[in-house]
């Protein structure tokens, strides 16, 4: 079965999911991102790599953070960026998603960055755009958020160097998380020997072990000797849909406190995709503590997105 993300030469044509991407491609993105970290620290934060290219942010699901990081990344590459907040545009007049895409393609877009509330939306768009257009998935339903996972891998490599002797734990609502799914595929592809998920039963998808993870319901057991803690955000909806009773009980058993962090390795790093719910999945002492690399994640996020756009535009 051909991989919808790769062209006939095996090069990246779209970035839709970390699943099914060979390690060399993931590593190429991380290596390219290294060179861009320097750019964001300069006074003139621009390189002309994507000058003249039109990048359209197609956000069918609202987001300020992710959209802004993509916009910054594109502008640092000197690309022209158009932001489309589809909730207020023609979508509400009944135009189909693909009609919107077709109209924009006719305006000579080079790249679409798509966020949608439904799993599979980016795949559908990628199947229907003209061959010259590249699609980056900025998050589709519960399915995937590949650039988030890639910046998380970049961060892990920065602080831990070698994926091959790490224990990584992902804590929280795996069931609803596109970030978790993308992280799991990236971690296993890059050779992390032990990936753990720590979650109550109501927040775990069926047969999740088949993705190559060890399942823990007890956070204290799950965090023993862990090198990297990937925290996930908890949404209010989980209480409303009878999966959890309260944020307080969740915090007691699955929230990251300094006591729980002490069970991991002494030099373990703490990560979070943001935005954080302080006091629900993580307490402030840890979020602002010396083991937290949450702010560097944001910086690396811009470099990684610059890398993805550059690689796609070059293929």
């Amino acid at each position: 079965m051909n991989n919808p993300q790769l062209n006939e030469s095996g090069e990246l044509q779209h970035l839709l999911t970390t699943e099914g991407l060979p390690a060399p491609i993931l590593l190429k993105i991380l290596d390219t991102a290294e060179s861009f970290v320097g750019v964001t620290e300069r006074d003139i934060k621009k390189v002309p790599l994507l000058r003249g290219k039109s990048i359209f942010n197609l956000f069918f699901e609202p987001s300020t953070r992710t959209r802004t990081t993509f916009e910054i990344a594109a502008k640092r590459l000197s690309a022209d960026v158009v932001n489309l907040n589809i909730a207020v545009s023609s979508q509400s007049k009944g135009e189909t998603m693909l009609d919107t895409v077709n109209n924009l393609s006719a305006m000579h877009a080079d790249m679409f960055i798509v966020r949608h509330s439904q799993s599979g939306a980016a795949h559908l768009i990628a199947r229907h755009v003209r061959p010259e257009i590249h699609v980056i998935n900025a998050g589709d339903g519960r399915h995937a958020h590949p650039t988030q996972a890639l910046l998380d891998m970049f961060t892990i490599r920065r602080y831990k160097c070698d994926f091959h002797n790490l224990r990584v734990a992902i804590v929280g609502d795996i069931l609803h998380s596109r970030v978790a799914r993308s992280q799991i595929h990236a971690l296993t592809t890059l050779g992390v020997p032990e990936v753990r998920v720590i979650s109550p039963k109501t927040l775990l998808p069926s047969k999740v072990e088949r993705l190559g993870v060890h399942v823990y319901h007890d956070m204290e057991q799950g965090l023993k000797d862990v090198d990297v803690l990937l925290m996930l955000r908890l949404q209010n909806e989980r209480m409303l849909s009878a999966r959890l009773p309260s944020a307080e009980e969740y915090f007691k058993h699955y929230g990251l406190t300094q006591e729980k962090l002490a069970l991991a390795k002494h030099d373990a790093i703490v990560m979070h995709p943001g935005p954080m719910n302080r006091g629900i999945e993580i307490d402030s002492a840890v979020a602002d503590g010396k083991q937290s690399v949450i702010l560097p994640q944001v910086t690396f996020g811009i470099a990684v997105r610059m890398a993805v756009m550059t690689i796609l535009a070059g293929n």
Partner: protein
Amino acid sequence: MRIFIKNGRVIDPRNGIDAVNNIYIVAGKIVAIGTEPDSFQANHIIDAKGLVVCPGLVDLSVRLREPGLEYKATLESEMRAAVAGGVTSLACPPDTDPPLDEPGLVEMLKHRAKNLNQAHVYPIGALTQGLKGERLTEMAELQDAGCVAFSQSDKLLLDTRVMMQAMQYASTFGFRVWLRPEDASIADSGVAHDGEVATRLGLPAIPVCAETIALSKIVLIARETGAKVHLCRVSSAEGVAMVRAARQQGLPITCDVAANHIHLSEMDISFFDSNCHLVPPLRGISDRDALRAGLVDGTIDAVCSDHAPVDEDAKLLPFGESEAGATGLELLLSLILKWAEEINIPLAVAVAKITSEPAKILGVKAGDLSVGTAADLCIFDPGQHWRVEAPILKSQGKNTPFLDMELQGKVKYTLADGIIVYED
């Protein structure tokens, strides 16, 4: 009209016939098989050498989309699709717009269908008004208007008390109740089987227990009320096992499976192929294998197409937003033949699953080639390959998981009431 069909391999499962023979048709009825009647002069001769001649297919679930849903398909197009698929009797579920809960609507549908002079249409009436699951429909009136059974189609009953009383009321008159075993609150907004594929793709999922919990409710209520129940579209291994156990305990319950489900599984969803967005969902490979085994041992009585033409726009959406369903009338024969060939069972056994068995479930005179009955026949070439392509399909729905695939088994002629209503 006097028709002579010669040299065909006649397969009539109900009468235990599987042999090369001749069939004589006069004035819409089969008048003889084998021996030519006295002074018979044919107007029309069909040489069925190398072909199979079987009863016209009986399809237990065909959405004609009338009344109300004509932008998806029309009665004319879907009736053409039916005979192109060799189907001469079909049951249509009540989920039209408005639903088939009024005798007038049923009469109009029957009248419109009859005037097309193609397949016989047997409407399934709504079990509750508007399919809302609150108040009972006038089942006796609906039966007088032509309904052969009552169902909720895919509007699952939320209220167990209403389900029980509806079945009790139907049972008062000996009416059949057709139910799709799925618990609405567990299924919730699920769109795929709760298994590895839904986990990878991040799709809201429907666990097997949605089927088994509903099934056990239905079985217990059937036992209580004595209602004649038919289960529509079993989808799981555990579901099949429960039906088997209920039958072993003497409960006269019947069930069917959709043709797509005996071949496909959750794996076929692949990269979010919305043509595989079906109801019930395509489940795991072991579920599919159990459905196939259930067909062999008779736990599952019949196979239907579960025909649901969907307009292109409604499928060109992200999986979870796309409309569920597959067009199926024109693939039913090929898919049952494919199953028969793969597990090496006699053609007659396979043909029974789409002729005599569904006719029994419907309770109508159809599905066999007895002398004196209406001449509803399907004549097909079991060896001919054909490609499932949008322009070839007569149905307005081109939404099938088998699009652009090659299948075997082509209908060459379909006769309804002794008239050739389709010729390849």
